């Protein structure tokens, strides 16, 4: 009789269970016993009652993980899918072959709820077709959806911020995979917010006048897994001139009247774009544009030279500010799956960079530089140069060689 045999029998007696975390149930049990009332089954009532007051860096949040999404939210995911399909069609016409993600709307469910001065904010999730997940941030009738990009790192961290003129604060939300149990956000006002990771997703709120300096994921034991920051020591180390350089695109470009007869251009004009774009530069057979909006903001775009609509891919123009000291790169690269379909890699690299970005370095998974692309006229592009296999990351560097932004975040 060996110890190993005994271990084997013990192992077989109670196999490792497959269990799904249900913290909302824990909180519900805690409340039921204390207050002696039952949770109302209706979803609307549950949203009001289930989010338990739990302080998160001064903000009040709650969880409603696993609750089925109401029809309106499932419909939002359906509309997101339709938008993605339209984008896919535009990309294909523009020569940017890229399969856009699709959410399985029928399986949408709640993940996190946050109480804010603007009302409750909900983060919903739905599985992504083919693996991964999609998520949707909802504040009243405002929604913002995104999907897992299946980047190769097992400790991936991606995030977005969401705000607008109708919202008194800002929200940060994103995905932290691997062993991530919490995400810590260091803000420019010196505050730090710790957010729990639920189903690989997190969400938090912060005031409008600040921005995140660093977002870092930690495991349950407090080990720092991965971080994204504008600079290792924060943007505070930058001089005022350097900060300004990361916050502007000064290339004046040349006026480029858009072909108003093109259906896509008509769609753009109807959506609030000016009829005349600004051609910043042409690189590697692609035109890069600034696209003024009638509301005074600008988006940026690109399209192959000779494309009927002129512009095929549009990025920016939303509430996330570009160029900004914490957002000096607007990447428009084309990514695709590797041969084994398990990871994504860059096929073509290009986009718009702020004045303070001197070069974009294409890196592999280990952080080794594969390709160095200079920024000229606020544009970088790999042109006809073949992007080496294994290219999974872009680092934007300033003239001193400091990394000021990273893609994917």
């Amino acid at each position, binding site marked *: *009789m060996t*110890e190993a*045999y*005994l*271990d084997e*029998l*013990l192992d*077989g*007696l*109670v*196999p*490792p*269970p497959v*269990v799904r*975390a*249900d*913290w909302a*149930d*824990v*909180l*519900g*049990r*805690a409340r039921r*016993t*204390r207050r002696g009332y039952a949770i109302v089954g209706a979803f609307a009532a549950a949203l009001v009652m289930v989010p*338990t007051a*739990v*302080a*998160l860096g001064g903000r009040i949040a709650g969880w409603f993980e696993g609750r089925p999404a109401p029809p309106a939210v499932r419909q939002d995911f359906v509309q997101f899918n339709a938008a993605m399909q339209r984008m896919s069609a535009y990309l294909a016409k523009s020569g940017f072959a890229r399969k856009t993600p699709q959410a399985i709307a029928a399986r949408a469910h709640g993940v996190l709820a946050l109480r804010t001065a603007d009302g409750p904010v909900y983060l919903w999730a739905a599985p992504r077709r083919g693996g991964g997940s999609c998520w949707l941030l909802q504040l009243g009738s405002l929604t913002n959806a995104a999907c897992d990009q299946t980047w190769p790192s097992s400790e991936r961290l991606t995030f977005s911020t969401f705000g607008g003129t109708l919202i008194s604060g800002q929200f940060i939300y994103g995905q932290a995979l691997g062993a991530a*149990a*919490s995400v810590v956000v260091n803000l420019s006002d010196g505050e730090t917010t*710790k957010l*729990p*990771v*639920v189903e690989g997703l997190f969400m938090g709120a912060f005031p409008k006048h600040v921005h995140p300096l660093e977002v870092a994921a930690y*495991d*349950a*034991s407090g080990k720092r897994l991965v971080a994204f920051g504008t600079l290792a020591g924060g943007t505070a180390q930058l001089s005022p001139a350097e900060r300004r350089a990361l916050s502007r695109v000064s290339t004046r470009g040349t006026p480029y009247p858009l072909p108003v007869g093109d259906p896509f251009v008509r769609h753009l004009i109807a959506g609030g774009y000016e009829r005349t774009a600004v051609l910043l530069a042409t690189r590697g057979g692609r035109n890069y544009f600034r696209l003024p909006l009638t509301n005074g903001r600008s988006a940026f775009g690109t399209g192959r030279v000779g494309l009927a609509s002129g512009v095929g891919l549009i990025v920016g123009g939303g509430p996330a500010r570009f160029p900004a000291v914490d957002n000096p790169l607007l990447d428009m690269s084309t990514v695709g799956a590797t041969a084994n379909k398990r990871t994504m890699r860059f096929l073509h690299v290009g986009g718009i960079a702020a004045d303070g970005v001197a070069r974009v370095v294409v890196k592999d998974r280990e952080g080794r530089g594969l390709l160095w692309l200079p920024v000229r006229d606020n544009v970088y592009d790999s042109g006809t140069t073949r992007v080496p296999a294994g290219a999974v990351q872009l680092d934007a560097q300033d003239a001193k060689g400091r990394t000021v932004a990273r893609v994917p975040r």
Partner: protein
Amino acid sequence: MTSDDLELLYRAKLADFCRAATAIAGDAELGRDAVQDAFARAVRKRRRFRGDGPLEAWVWRIVVNAARDARRKRGVVAESVQTEAPDAPPGERLPLELLTERQREVLFLHYYADLDYATIAAALGISPGTVGATLSIARRTLRQALTQEVAR
């Protein structure tokens, strides 16, 4: 200590808690339910945690008590555990009935939750030295019983 800390522990170690609680309660459903109840108790009583020991040990103590309660309410003797695993063939069954309750709990916490002696001691309210001795006796008892079974 806040609910956040408890939630992080819950999410990080849920499988370990459920496995050990299943072994103590004698049933997978009871074990899972005991873990949920135990964390609910921990949330309610979190202000009583004085911080003079690790949070995890404090929670384990609550989980063990909840699993014991569940087993006693059901009247289940933890000589067999109802899980979804296929039944072990005759001759390969662990004779857990030969162990005392404390020996079983020490064995389960050590094996299924991979806890060190100090945490087991804090969870069960005994000394780390007693944990080592109890574990040794439990394993020896099982080894001897299984050896005799094979010899027959």
